[in-house]
């Protein structure tokens, strides 16, 4: 078990997680968080479900825009960190739930103006992803939007090559700092289309390797 111990020591704390994410995205993660929050809240009072809130970087921005947030994460230490972060800037009420994305089917269907999946889909297996996207879509109220942001496979050619080269050290750094071996989502847009939701917009950063996709349920 010794190898594991070493790994657990290196990973795990929310501070190291945040630092790791900043390093891995060359600081682009802050832009992504801001864009996610902007796309998620149209007006104060919107009901937003955030799946995988992590250390609360997006939760904080959602609250600042006046959203009523339901934030779920499976890691209690992440929720603790997120609660501490959100409290000072608190604008709207937050419901914190310690559970996995695979338990969102216990939340009411058709109740949310937005469902946010920020940097959590790439941690899931393809099977889990399609299950979660389908259930996430079912949580949306008429006219509600699905906002997914994640690391995706860059467009073929030199950008894909650059991503592969960049990911080799990143896989090592990521494993040490964040403790997970995430893989880029091969085709985020197709996976979202498979739920039946039409895509409204997409934005890319880092040579197309970070992508924000907004899809919307018919009103």
């Amino acid at each position, binding site marked *: 078990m010794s190898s594991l111990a070493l*790994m657990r020591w290196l990973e795990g704390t929310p501070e190291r997680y945040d630092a790791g994410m900043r390093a891995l995205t060359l600081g682009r993660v802050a832009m992504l968080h801001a864009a996610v929050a902007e796309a998620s809240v149209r007006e104060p009072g919107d009901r937003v479900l955030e799946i995988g809130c992590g250390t609360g970087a997006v939760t904080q921005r959602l609250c600042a825009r006046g959203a009523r947030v339901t934030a779920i994460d499976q890691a209690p230490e992440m929720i603790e960190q997120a609660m501490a972060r959100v409290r000072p800037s608190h604008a709207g009420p937050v419901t914190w739930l310690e559970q996995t994305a695979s338990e969102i089917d216990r939340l009411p269907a058709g109740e949310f103006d937005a469902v946010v999946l920020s940097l959590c889909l790439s941690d899931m297996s393809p099977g889990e992803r399609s299950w979660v996207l389908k259930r996430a879509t079912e949580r949306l109220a008429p006219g509600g939007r699905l906002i997914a942001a994640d690391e995706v496979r860059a467009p073929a050619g030199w950008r894909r090559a650059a991503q592969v080269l960049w990911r080799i050290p990143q896989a090592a750094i990521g494993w040490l700092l964040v403790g997970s071996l995430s893989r880029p989502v091969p085709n985020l847009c197709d996976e979202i289309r498979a739920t039946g939701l039409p895509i409204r917009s997409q934005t890319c950063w880092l040579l197309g390797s970070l992508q924000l996709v907004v899809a919307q349920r018919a009103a």
Partner: protein
Amino acid sequence: MRGGGRILDLIKEVLQTSFRLFPWPTEPGLRRIGRPDRSSPVLLTGNYDLSVRRLLRVLEGHDAWLLVAPSGGINVWCAAAGGQLTTHQVVTALKTSGVADQVDHRRVILPQLAATGVLALDVFRRTRWSLRFGPVHMRDLPAYLASQEKTDAMRRVLFPLVDRLQMAVMWAAPIMLVLGGAALWLKPDWVLPLGLLIASMSVAVFTLYDRLGTARRGGLATASVAASVAATVLAGGSGLAIGAAVLAPTLLTALLTFDYTGSTPLEGGSHFEERKWSITLDTERCEGVYRCWEVCPEACFEKREEVRKVELAHDERCIRCGACVVQCPEDALFFQDESGARIEPDVIRRYKLNLLGQRSIEAG
């Protein structure tokens, strides 16, 4: 299996056995073993490729569903203790794999060593699947599936020679790769003696160390230094080589015997604990559920069916893995030291691995 597939499988087996210190992820999800039907057993494991491939070999000729849960590419024992295979991953696998559409029952069998991380009661509350802890070793699965009964032998972790040698290889291979690589670059004629030293010390530590008393452990370390110095002198080594011959076995001893987690597969002690924590049973609270008996890898517990209680009959064997504490639905088990200070069950559930003495820090 075709010849090419077999060779690939063998290469994978050798690579993964040598470098099992590292994650080897395989795709999570539901797999078929043989031709399972709606009443076939459902077995769950982590997405550690080495285990999954070995499991498929062990169960050849059986019909079962194999549910591979996302455990970060880490083996069940480590992932359960380290937080990569917890209630959450089991819930995720049960709910998103579609297994519920394939079988009529709601029973899933987990490896016993998942018990430090996966809370059976919590899984049931969240999914209505009832969870049983099967044998420790997959080689016992065919007998377990046939009899539906877990014998005492299936419960115990005995750490036989073959397991010890696998541990030795697991440590020796990456150390050899790093040190051997450095030597190849700086001092090519050191590669062979260094390789021999690493190999022999890994085998010695993992086969002998825990069977020796404290004084003789020091003897083992001293003997390894003496042997490496003697060999160096005999080979006509210079002052620098003799220095390395003293330093290398000393560092290797430290690396190989260091207790990172609060307990090692070799022993249940801990270098971090100032106080000695003992497993303690509050008999009043015990309701005779026998989960502790089911999951203890050292068979510390005995059933007292006539009073519906469990007895902590062999607490001297306890390696403090915490599996019994984690599983007890009545919170009747905890760790306590001589002064009466306690580590409560919730702390154990949170810090399954006593990493760098984390449990004691939490206990204050």
